[in-house]
Structure formats: structure tokens, C-alpha cells
């Protein structure tokens, strides 16, 4: 599964990272060597092997459905790029 330059532009868009033509070409070359290494996994027989998502096979713990967080919005928003009236400001998305 060779990665194309179009793939690089597509995943950069999916990842929301601006990428120019020169950068895309440079990244394409580096990703090629990384995926050549990753493709070694194709040769491994994993028939019947259960995927391991985690170091400890444990069930997710449950806690009481109770409010445990207090209000920190002023502290957190103090370093947001732009806020107004307790809301985060972003460019208009609905005209």
C-alpha cells in the first residue's frame, strides 16, 4: 500500500494541518520510509489472535453518577485566545 502525494494532502486535510507543496513532498518521502517499516507487520500471521488495546486487561471502572467537578471556566478561559461573556470565540461558521 504505497502512500501517494494525494494521500498526504488528504490526511493533512483530515488532520487539519495546513501543508504547502514543498512540505507535502518532503513529508511524503519521510512517510514512505516509515510505512515501509510498518508494512513488515503484513508478513506476521495473526490468525486467531485477540487484539490487545491496553496493557492491563481490565474493565472500565464505573463511578457514581454524581457531579464532582466545580466551575473552573474563568480560570481556564483566562488563557484562551479569544473569549467573550464566558464563551470561546471562533470565526463565524453560520451566515
Amino acid at each position, binding site marked *: *500500500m504505497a*502512500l501517494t502525494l494525494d*494521500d*498526504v494532502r488528504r*490526511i*493533512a*486535510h*483530515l*488532520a*487539519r*494541518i*495546513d*501543508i504547502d507543496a514543498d512540505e507535502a513532498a518532503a*513529508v511524503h518521502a*519521510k*512517510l514512505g*520510509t*516509515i*510505512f*515501509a*517499516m*510498518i*508494512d*513488515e*507487520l*503484513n508478513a*506476521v500471521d*495473526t490468525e486467531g*489472535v*485477540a*487484539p*490487545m*488495546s*491496553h*496493557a*492491563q486487561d*481490565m474493565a*472500565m*471502572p464505573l*463511578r457514581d453518577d454524581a457531579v464532582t467537578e466545580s466551575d*473552573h471556566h474563568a*480560570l*481556564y478561559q483566562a*488563557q*484562551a*485566545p*479569544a473569549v467573550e461573556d464566558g464563551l*470561546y470565540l*471562533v*470565526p*463565524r*461558521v453560520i451566515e
Partner: protein
Amino acid sequence: MALPSTTLAGLGAALARGALSSVELTREVLARAGAAQPALNAFVTLDADGALAAARAADESRAAGRAGPLTGVPIAHKDVLMTAGLRTTCSSRMLANFTAPYDAHVVDALKRAGTVLVGKTNMDEFAMGSSNETSYFGPVRNPWNPAYVPGGSSGGSAAAVAARIVPAATGTDTGGSIRQPASLSGICGLKPTYGLCSRYGLIAFASSLDTPGMFAQTAEDCALMLNAMAGHDPRDATSLPRPREDYTRELGQPLAGLRIGLPREYFGDGTDLDVAAAVDAAIAEYRKLGATTVDIALPAVKLSVPVYYVIAPAEASSNLSRFDGVRYGHRAAGYADLLDMYKKSRAEGFGAEVKRRILVGTYVLSHGYYDAYYLKAQKVRRLIADDFQRAFAQCDVIAGPTAPSAAFEFGAKSDDPVQMYLNDIFTIAGNLTGVPGISIPCGFTRGGLPIGLQLQANYFREAQLLGVAHGLQQATDWHARVPAAYGVQR
């Protein structure tokens, strides 16, 4: 000023007997940190005012009869751990001006143990790197030779301990980021069992692999730090509820009858000859101490690098999606619309290696590729974990080199990501499986660079691991060697 000791245990004892105060000690540590900064660049932020206030509080606690083994001892935290009110950058432009609103669990735990935080240590950006060359704030230099890397990603913590600036520092280990810099910088570095130390407040890179741990000069000091850092924390869903342990309890235990497993895969062609010789000598020392060795096989470990470079970027691409220029972190100055704001903010805020890993992760999780990459990697991860469990049926600890080579020169691997990644070939399996591992100094190359021995044990066997490491440190003095530039007036 000369200090009565440079170790955590030694300084704790000196404070306890009143040989010096925490304020005096903290002033000296701050002076050393400032003096070494131009040469090493180990710190991103030094907090002299906060440190001296904490030191005064520690001295008052001691005067009031409330002091533990760590009260008043200055330490440093890796800049991936949140420190309330103090800049926390992940060595990224993205967070260059970010002040953490709360403490990470391990930061809080060490604060409650009475430690004095002197500063935040430099690292590879978002903990992605093995050489500290990806930091937005410039690389950390190796105290043994400034032309060489200190290892990474926790390179600043490793250098600060190696240069005898602080007796201990925290780190985080996702693929070797504690053990590899400990090896390359000639100190001890412990990665505990996954789930033993809470990840709350550790800015996430790869959540199923990220593990808080520590650097120190001795196994004993690592045990003292772990005593303070371990413990259940409901704020991290993967933190394990376990009874409290005293991790110093096996220090000084005889090693007679200890079974050391030697994986043939760790002693192959890829390992530097000086490294192999030093590791062999350490194992011979263990035999003299009464241990026996058994040959074991970890055939799937050779696949750990490709498995890691699917799983870690996949998790990173998800975790780092939070940096969007909306709630915190860098926002681009000019943009056309919301999508353009996201894209420009992330393009400017992240460095090349971080972007590369986000792109790899985005690709392996994208439609049509998930089974071929992510699911496949998770299955091979199981094969690697099964190898370790088979090995631990035959031995108590697994020994080998921490890294295939000693420190390398700046730029030596930075153009070839795969060569850089292969430096973690012996450490990554510990993260994929979650078993604890420690790197301890075991010798030097002919060029005078330190070499690390990695010891790994089964889940939750940190006390045994530290006891085994301590045994070698009682019989040899590799851990007490100090880089020439930092060895005066100690």
C-alpha cells in the same frame, strides 16, 4: 557551595540532621541550574520564587516535626506534566505560553511529600523523539559530552540529574523516553508498570503507553520517589487500585537464586560492541552475586518498532486534535475562516516530527485502513505480550542493553526517522506490554560515554526490580561516576 551529598537519600538525611536547610539547598540547586543552562539547556522554565517559598514551607514543616524522607528536597518535573500556575509547554510552540491550571497527580503527590519544585525540564516536543532535538526551545546537551544528545524524550530531566543539578526528576516513558535518556546520560531511570502512577495531568501523547516515572542517581532514590508517586487516582480511568507498597523493601536483599533471563534478540548484530561488553560485564557481576542466567527468546520483540509506530501515532493523532487554537495554545494571527484557523494554527504550532506522527496516525485510522494497520498492530502487540509472559515463567528479571548504542552526535539520525525510531528497539516492548523496566549505568564506551543496563520484571514487581538494581550498585560504582564538567565541589 559544596553539598554533603547529591543523592535524594543523602540530601534527605542531611536535611533531617540539620546539616543544611531546604532554603540553603534550594538556593544551591537554583545556582547550579542557572550556571549549567547555557551549556545544557536542560530547563524550559526555572521557578526561583516558587521554589524558595516551597523550601521555606518545608523548613517550617520540619521545625514543626512534620517531615518525611523527601521533605525539602529540590526536584524538577518534565514539562509534559501540568504544574498549577507554572508554564507547561511540552517544549512546543503550541503551548509556549500555556500556564497549567492544575497539578498532575504525580506533581501533586510529590508536592504533598514535601519536595521543592525548582523548574520544568526540556524535552522532545510532545515527548516525540529519542534525542531531544525536536524541542521548540532547542536541544538539551549531554553532560558527558556536549556534542552528543542526552537521549529523549525526557532529555532535560536526564541531563539535570546527570549533571548533579537536582537529585531526582520526573519523566514520562511512552516508548523508552525515561530508560533511553537514563542510559545515554549515565543515570537511573524507572518506568513503572502501566497504571501504577496516574496519568492525570500528563499531557497525553499515546494514552495506552504513556507512563510517568523518574530519574535519579540510585535505585534507592528511585524507590523513594516511587513511594510518593504510586497510588490509585480515580481521575485516571486506567489507574489501578492496588494496596500501598514500600518500594524500598527489597533493597539489600541477597540476589542468590535470582534467575536473570537473557533474550538472545537483545544481544545480536545491531548492538554496539562496547555496549554488549559492558552489559556482559554487569551480568557477570550478577553471577558473582549468586544469580543464575537463563537464555530466553522474545521473537516478536523485533516487531515492536513497527507496532509502536502504528499505535502511538494513532493515539497521538486523536489526543493532539485538542490543539485547535480555540480553547488554549497557539492561534494563527491571520485566517480566512474556522477551517483555515484550525489548519494554520496547527501548522504553525506543531514541529515537523509531531506533524509527521499526526499524519501517520490519521492515515492508519482512516477509512479503509483501520483493519490493515491499527487492528493488525494490536494483534501483534498481543504476540509481544505473550512472549514476555512465557519468558517470565522461566526467569525473574530480563536483562539486556537499554539501547543498542551509547549517545550519538547531534544530527546523526535526525534526517532518517526510522533510524531514530530503532534506537528504542529494546525499550518499546515494555510500553506495549506495560511491564516495568529500569535502566542503570553499567559502564562506558571507549569514547567515555555512559552505557545503560535495562532490567525488566513482570507487572507490579518494581520492588524486586529496584532490589536487583541496587544489588549491582552495591557491588560497582558506575552510578556514582560524574561528568567531568559537573564533578567539582560536590
